[in-house]
């Protein structure tokens, strides 16, 4: 009797292990879409309801965490505020000058700019992946709202990621910090270009890789999407979307490994409302 139980147990375990490997094989054979699509469609209303029900509890935990953190952040923010004020004044002057120049030159928006074709669709984050190895969120807008795979996703602060899969009423967004994420970006104002990759495990650190310029990059410079267009192909992201600020840019690092580090503007660890830029180019 006992031996029979052990045999049955081993058979079930073997079956489950083979099942796992089979699922992995199906995934990498690109045939798992229908299965995942079905499960996601069934569960997305439940996720949406759970998200709304659990929001007060989440806010409470966030409040404790943020209060704890705020003490250390206060002095850093004061310093940043002084710099930001100066930049705001300079920005206002630039805006005024820009408006005058536009009026003078009667400059229209360039029709070739991909950004003009984008229609923002606002969505709420309803679920998030539990591991640092895969960074994805589920949002409550999907194909019925016009969302398509590979649409760029932004928050109020900047680029967040892109849509990885879509169901009727929900979509999965692969964040900038996901291991499969790669975005072509440039450093302002020089326009030094590179490919933005995550550093797994650290949501506040991105790496701008393969810098293709001899010009050096300095700490504090802004990084935006480059939004290239060449030979009928176009970047998935419109040009000029803010991504982050350069935090580490030593000359040695740039010369040896052609990379600099930056901190994303968007708080990728704490997303609530995002916008999907629908209707743009898909390369």
């Amino acid at each position, binding site marked *: 009797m*006992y031996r029979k139980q*052990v045999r049955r*147990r081993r058979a*079930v*375990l073997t079956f*489950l*292990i083979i*099942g*796992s*490997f*089979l*699922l*992995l*094989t*199906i*995934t*990498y054979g690109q045939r*798992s879409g229908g*299965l*995942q699509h079905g*499960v*996601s469609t069934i*569960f997305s209303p*439940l*996720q949406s309801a*759970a998200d709304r029900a*659990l929001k007060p509890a*989440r806010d409470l*935990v*966030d409040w404790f*965490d943020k209060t704890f953190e705020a003490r250390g952040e206060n002095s850093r923010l004061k310093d940043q505020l002084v710099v930001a004020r100066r930049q705001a004044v300079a920005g206002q002057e630039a805006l005024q000058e820009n408006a005058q120049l536009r009026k003078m030159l009667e400059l229209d928006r360039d029709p070739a700019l991909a950004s003009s074709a984008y229609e923002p669709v606002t969505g709420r*984050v*309803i*679920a*998030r*992946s*539990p*591991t*640092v*190895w*895969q960074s*994805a969120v*589920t949002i409550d807008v999907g194909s019925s709202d016009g969302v398509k795979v590979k649409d760029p996703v932004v928050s109020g602060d900047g680029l967040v990621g892109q849509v990885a*899969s879509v169901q009727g009423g929900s979509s*999965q967004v692969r964040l900038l910090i996901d*291991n*499969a*994420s*790669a975005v072509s970006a440039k450093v302002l104002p020089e326009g030094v270009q590179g490919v933005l*990759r*995550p*550093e*797994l*495990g*650290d*949501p506040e*650190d991105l*790496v701008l890789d393969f810098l293709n310029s001899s010009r050096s990059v300095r700490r504090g410079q802004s990084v935006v999407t480059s939004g290239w267009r060449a030979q009928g192909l176009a970047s998935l992201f419109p040009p000029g979307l803010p991504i982050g600020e350069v935090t580490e840019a030593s000359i040695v690092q740039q010369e040896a490994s052609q990379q600099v580090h930056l901190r994303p503007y968007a708080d990728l*660890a*704490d997303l609530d409302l995002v916008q999907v830029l629908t209707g743009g180019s898909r390369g």
Partner: protein
Amino acid sequence: MIVTPRIFARLAAIVIVAVLLQLSFFSRVELVHVSPDILPAVVISLGLLGGSMTGAVSGFTIGFLVDSLLVEALGASSLVLLAVGYLAGLFRERFDIHSALVPPLLCMVLTLVAELGFGAVQLMLGVDAPVSVLVIRDMLLKSVYAFFLGWPIYFGLRRALRPALVEESRVSRRRQPTILGAR
């Protein structure tokens, strides 16, 4: 564990609620920059309560649901969680749980095993991006959170599944630990 249709329904509800709670709540709150992961603790608790088969099957199911809902590589989470569920069940079948500290301690240790296992599976599947040392902090803190969350999870699940559990007071569990497969 005696699995009747009613207990099966309870187990299914536990699995679904755990996945929804993880994705909609625990993954979205941070304590010291790390989100708690209750799923290994739930699988370990089910393994400790129901044995290796219950642990393995619930681990596989929870992993499958998570991978499906997040549209990630199917099978990766299943493989890791079924392994920790099976290990927890084996522990229960071979040793007595003498102290109330055993379940949370096991949750801590096996959550670390699950995190390492998940990292290993991801690396085998191919990770193009550089890996920060903060991944280690993430793994360690998740294990510490599992210790504190493991206690209410284990005793909550024991209460929910009580009708299916063999009453420990009625059965003498003072026998020596036996090796699986030995007569």
